């Protein structure tokens, strides 16, 4: 049974933030490569997707098949697509997945290449780009099973669970968990206590070897950003604890957060996991690292 390899190409939220203060974690927006044997899956098409394209073209594969899953079509999750080199090559096949009977993702991905926004037309791309739908909430990319689940975000967003053998990876970005708490007042009343989340969400993440999750805000910041579609990082820890996740990658870093700020959030989240008495490995998702799950 093949291992699952996960590589982070973009871990920033909202807008690219290049520069010295974000150099270690990286400034590109959401894009994660998940590879199982010859099956290449890409989760989100943020600006990190450009570098992924450069990397893939260097490998000079005769033919390339890319399974592209979009959490949702907000800018920071689609902006890298027009700069994805393999999309210009006629030996590439790309499957763009969306909910059954809804090709909105495909339409918006191509729509951002309208002449007013971008000089090259979607129709002029060399690759064979095909819209595909989930049947129910599951699809097969090659031999790999991918499940989808709904999340709380303005306009909606989708999380994905990749399963292969007894291993699983969950990609769950742009999800305002704090709007889903079964007891929202607990955060003020008992901030240290476990914040319970709905059973269906916990089930979707249950037992994941790796959870890659939106963890954009500190507790203090969140009070000013309620309804913006992103959670308290500490609440993400509580989801991982309830779902008995093995590793938690905090991602979708806020553009205002420097590397040092992200370090401090990771520390706070590690302490919270310890306070719940579980063995959960928490780290900050960082561009350019590959994990073997």
């Amino acid at each position, binding site marked *: 049974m093949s291992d699952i*390899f996960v*590589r982070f190409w973009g871990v920033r939220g909202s807008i690219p933030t290049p520069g010295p203060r974000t*150099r*270690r974690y990286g400034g590109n927006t959401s894009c994660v490569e998940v590879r199982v044997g010859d099956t290449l899956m890409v989760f989100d098409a943020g600006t990190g997707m450009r570098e992924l394209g450069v990397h893939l073209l260097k490998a000079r594969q005769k033919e390339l098949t890319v399974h592209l899953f979009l959490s949702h079509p907000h800018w920071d999750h689609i902006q890298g697509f027009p700069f994805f080199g393999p999309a210009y090559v006629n030996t590439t096949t790309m499957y763009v997945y969306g909910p059954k009977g809804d090709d909105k993702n495909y339409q918006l991905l191509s729509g951002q290449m309208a002449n007013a926004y971008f000089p090259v037309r979607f129709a002029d791309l060399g690759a064979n780009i095909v819209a595909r739908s989930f049947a129910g909430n599951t699809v097969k990319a090659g031999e790999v099973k991918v499940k989808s689940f709904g999340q709380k975000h303005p306009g909606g967003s989708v999380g994905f669970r990749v399963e292969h053998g007894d291993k699983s990876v969950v990609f769950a970005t742009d999800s305002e968990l704090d709007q889903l708490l079964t007891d929202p007042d607990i955060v003020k009343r008992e901030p240290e206590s476990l914040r319970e989340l709905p059973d269906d969400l916990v089930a979707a993440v249950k037992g994941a070897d790796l959870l890659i999750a939106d963890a954009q805000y500190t507790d203090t910041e969140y009070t000013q950003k309620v309804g913006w579609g992103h959670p308290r990082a500490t609440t993400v820890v509580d989801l991982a604890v309830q779902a008995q996740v093995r590793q938690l990658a905090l991602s979708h870093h806020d553009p205002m957060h420097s590397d040092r700020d992200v370090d401090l959030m990771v520390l706070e989240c590690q302490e919270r996991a310890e306070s719940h008495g579980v063995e959960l*490995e928490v*780290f900050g998702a*960082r*561009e*350019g*690292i*590959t*994990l*073997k799950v």
Partner: protein
Amino acid sequence: MARETVEFEDFHTQVAVRVKGFRPVVQRPHLLEGKAGPAIGQKFVLDANELILGRGDKATLPLDSEEVSRQHAKLTRNEGEYTIEDLGSRNGIVLNGLKVHSAILRDGDQVQLGDVVLAYREGT
């Protein structure tokens, strides 16, 4: 028209010498410094496009430890940055406490191979 250029080994690029606001500087190489274990106090200058870390004869960056595999990890230089990649070693690569398969290294990173701990220092 031929232009006078200076080539930067690390960045695989050429820059015209007379570009306003640009002054060529002497490049300092990236380093790995031994912080714990058998390599403590050692400094390894990273001066090749590819280096093999290990305890075997084929290692170009030798580490004298039984906890290090013969060919433990590979360092590859790409546009001035080094990527470290596990070559199927027994004890893997731990980057700042996190087990990774590969990583682009950044200044200050601590890389652990078995009982060898190395700090990565970026040059200029």
